[in-house]
């Protein structure tokens, strides 16, 4: 399910089994076994951010809203919020990522996940995210923008 996009010597993995926020580069993966959605940052978002120095995450039980903050981060001396791709209630957070944010850079789609959400409106909100056959065009457009900015070769 891994979709690789190659630019020069670098490749960017965008797994095709999840949905992506166009603006915030958060990924969301629905788990049909428990109805929860796992959330993390995609490879393109991490390329723009650089190595994460610090991450904080709201605790389980917190309500989150699509486009609103569920945590904070620092990377390359930039601080800011982490934005939820969908609404719902946080079921769990990845304390390993909080203790060791480099996990997010090293393994963004597995060990570097951030929070698990019980979604309140997955069907409608996921339709606003990028997924499936729309992925290649979106990724190529983003890569071209990154290249123009000089962040990638």
């Amino acid at each position, binding site marked *: 399910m891994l979709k690789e996009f190659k630019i020069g010597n670098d490749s960017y993995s965008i797994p095709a089994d999840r949905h992506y926020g*166009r*603006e*915030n*580069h958060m990924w969301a993966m629905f788990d049909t076994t428990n109805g929860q959605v796992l959330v993390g940052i995609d490879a393109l*978002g991490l390329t*723009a*951010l*650089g*190595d994460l*120095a*610090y991450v*904080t995450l709201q605790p389980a039980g917190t309500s989150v809203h699509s486009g609103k*903050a569920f945590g*904070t981060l*620092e*990377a*390359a*001396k*930039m*601080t*800011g*919020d982490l*934005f939820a791709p969908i609404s719902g209630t946080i079921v769990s957070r990845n*304390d390993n990522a*909080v*203790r*060791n*944010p*480099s996990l997010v*850079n090293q393994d963004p789609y597995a060990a570097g996940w951030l929070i698990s959400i019980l979604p309140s409106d997955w069907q409608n909100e996921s339709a606003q995210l990028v997924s499936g056959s729309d992925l290649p065009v979106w990724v190529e457009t983003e890569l071209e*923008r*990154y290249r123009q*900015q000089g*962040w990638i070769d």
Partner: protein
Amino acid sequence: MDWRLITDDGVSASFGLSADEVMAERVGAGVSVPTLRLYTYRSYCALVGRFQNIKNELRIDFCHENHIPINRRPTGGGAIIMGEDQLGIALSMPAQEGDTYSRAREIMTLFSDGIVRGLKSLGVDAHFHRKNDIVVNGKKIVGLGIHRAPSNGLLFHASVLVDLDVPFMLRVLNTPFEKISDKEIATITERITNVRRETNSRVTLDEVRKIIAREYETSLNIHLVPGDFTPEERQDIDRLEKEKYLSDDWIYQTSSIEDTYGGSKIKTPVGLIDVRVSMAGAMIKAAFIGGDFFASEAAVADLEGALKWHSGQPEKVAAALEEVYMRRREEFNSLPLEFIVQAVQKAVVRALALEILEDGGPHSQEVNAGEKHD
């Protein structure tokens, strides 16, 4: 396009930071105009980065004894001292729609340009460094940070060292040194620089401020209109100052990432390499590379700068060091790159081992805490 220019001097740490955060929030929300603030703090205050642990960054007792206010910036980066000889810059503007992280990175370069141009017009050969500092021949002269407000406002923070009392700074900040001797002071003095030193003049902070304002107008293609905070803004600043920047909960909050220190000494055919690193988790916060080998101080400062806020992963450490080394090879006077890499990697490994020790992890018994500085 018109932007507002606010100049104020001798502000308190809590007011200064509160004003910057409020402006970013309000500009992002569209209720205040984009603003460039060029200001100074009352000498002195100590400001740590957004997520830093104060006890690790500052000599708290010294600060208290000497009535030096301590506070926490909304922006990232390391601990600094601010006073009448350090020009604070706060630029508040709305973030571009539809782009969360990358726009912030873009404006770090864009907003540095006014400062770089200003320094150049003073005769200082300053450059934006990709590790988010402005440097002169590898030596830091301006520190930078950025904060993205929840309202979609962006705050660009910079501190321009018009002058710097290094011995005083070393009494305020915690350093990887066990003691601060004349040798350490001399070394640090060679690794950091300031406008007066580079221009060999007594240029005033106000002159620097005026030149930077003028260059911002050119680089951002804006017209700066001198002004002040509005009554509504002052109300918001006052509220946030009370709620946040005068609150111990904000100032003394702790991060769940432990800071650790590691050191290594390697004897090479061309001299001893003595490396100390301070780390936040797996990230190198700062590195000191000393010893008795011969190399230009600027080249060594460049190496240290490349490691700042850099991943501690061995291959990333090696790549960062190699990039500087290849660029300035001749300045290292045949000190082989491999020894520098080895010394830094060893120091990082020791720092990470101490982290495991503090976590009570499985390898804790294998590490001697006495190895902190080798």
